[in-house]
């Protein structure tokens, strides 16, 4: 585990920041006044008991929250300094910079493996890469997701023929193909067998060589293994965010300590 010296950390500029971010379903507030920074080329884990608002917080970071009925947000989220909730900001543009992968794999069932990876490129219209260029992007995205060797001979087959773990890595490749600045992973291994989960964890480690990764998990061991920083969420409140090592060895809040020692949740 790489532990960064505090001064080095302070010197770096976060690529995604939230200030006083709250999220609502109708009247009920499920995320309250969260202010947190996500560093470039780091993995940030969000942990907390089920229903504490982890997914909701994550979905506020690429404006997916607002696609649900009655869902609203207040506060700001800045991506490289630009407010993603500013009146002129287009949620579609936001989502192309902030990719997302869900708990259950979501390959498009009517598309081949190749078309799944290229799905995000195709909608660029005139500017969409074609032919060799598109092939190259698909290959690189699949390689990056560690899936290329397994599927290179059956790119034209249906994506739903893949195993669950392969499907999940396919979804990561699909998100990578449009070269996001940040990738959000919502319990990406929760529906996978241990071996597939391990592959995805290794992939997370690779991803942070290039981009910022935010991973939601309710598996504390996983958070400890893959993340540089960890944020602990409880009933919508951000209790504590710290370097992973610090949070797990010397939590500053008694509630964090109670949680990581298994006293509740």
């Amino acid at each position, binding site marked *: 585990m790489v532990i960064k010296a505090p001064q080095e950390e302070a010197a770096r500029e976060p690529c995604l920041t939230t200030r006083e971010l709250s999220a609502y379903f109708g009247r009920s507030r499920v995320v309250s006044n969260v202010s947190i920074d996500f560093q470039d080329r780091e993995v940030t884990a969000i942990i907390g008991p089920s229903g504490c608002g982890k997914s909701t917080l994550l979905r506020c970071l690429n404006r997916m929250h607002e696609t649900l009925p009655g869902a609203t947000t207040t506060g700001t989220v800045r991506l490289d300094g630009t407010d*993603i909730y500013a009146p002129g900001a*287009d949620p*579609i*543009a936001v989502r192309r910079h902030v990719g997302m992968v869900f708990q259950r794999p979501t390959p498009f069932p009517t598309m081949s493996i190749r078309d799944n990876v290229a799905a995000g490129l195709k909608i660029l219209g005139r500017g969409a890469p074609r032919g060799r260029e598109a092939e190259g992007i698909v290959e690189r995205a699949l390689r990056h997701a560690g899936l290329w060797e397994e599927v290179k001979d059956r790119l034209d087959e249906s994506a739903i023929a893949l195993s669950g773990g392969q499907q999940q890595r396919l979804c990561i490749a699909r998100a990578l193909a449009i070269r*996001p600045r940040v990738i959000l992973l919502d319990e990406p291994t929760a529906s996978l067998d241990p071996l597939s989960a391990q592959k995805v964890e290794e992939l997370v480690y690779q991803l942070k*060589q*290039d*981009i910022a990764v935010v991973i939601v998990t309710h598996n504390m061991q996983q958070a400890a293994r893959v993340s540089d920083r960890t944020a602990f969420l409880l009933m919508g409140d951000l209790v504590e965010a710290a370097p992973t090592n610090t949070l797990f060895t010397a939590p500053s809040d008694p509630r964090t300590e109670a949680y990581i020692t298994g006293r509740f949740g």
Partner: protein
Amino acid sequence: MGDAIASSGTSGGFARGRRVASLAGAAPGDRVYRVVITAFALMIPALLLLIAVAIGVAAWPALSAAGLSFITSSEWNVQAGKFGAAPAIYGTLVSSFIALVLATPLALGVAIFLSEIAPKWLRQPVAFLVDLLAAIPSVVYGLWGIFFLVPMLRDHVVPFFRDTLHLGNTPLFSGPAYGPSMLAAGVILAIMALPYISAVTREVLIAVPRSQRDAALALGATKWEMIWDAVIPYARSGIIGGVILGLGRALGETMAVTMVIGNRPEISASLLAPGYTMASLIANEFTEATSDLHLSALMAVGAVLFVITLIVNGMARWLVWRVASGPKS
């Protein structure tokens, strides 16, 4: 570059996102899409409104001229300009009633058979054959009715009721039996309504929870007692909904009825006498109508039919919905 990628397991910086400079965008696609699908959705109310207004306006002259006598009078005399639709309304109601009396027990039997009794391998084919009845065009039923059903009723069924069962003196079976008759219309409508009633009934029977059946069996009920005392009561209003749905179909049915009912605008107690229905009245006279009042009277018949089916279908939907949303009261 290609080699470098091929040799390294990872991207070599492929996935490095660019610093985000602008989040502007907003193509008008979504707004256009929303407007288009909303417009399509609005076409349905618009169409219904158009139908109601068009028929209402066209029917008005006849309705205002005849007043209430339009539905109470039996005199339909085009030359005299007298339009009383009572025989057609009566015929519509009676033929549909006969259809229900014949089709309901049969449909209930088939639905019970298919959902509770039939061996697995038999369910699919029998259900398919019954469902197929709904796919047969009404004009084909009419053709079959003219050349097979009507003669068969006249030559075999009616003599059986009259001579073997000695019912010839009752009003229902009195008078000459030419062939085309209220009875023939009722029988053909029964066949046509059967698949609708049995399909809905089958669905609601299947939806009855296991626990209802188990509870009855645990009390020592026979299979039939379980069906009759536990399953059917639970599904009752859904079944009634299915029957009324079948009624809605029967009321508006045109071609088959027109071809076998005899088309005579008289009210007769005998099932063997010819009759008329609202739909067949329109079908028969519309293209021959020359006077405006006659056309308007036919439109008014359409309006009455419209309103009756509206009420009947509304009732059916309400009953089916009640079952779908929980057990019977």
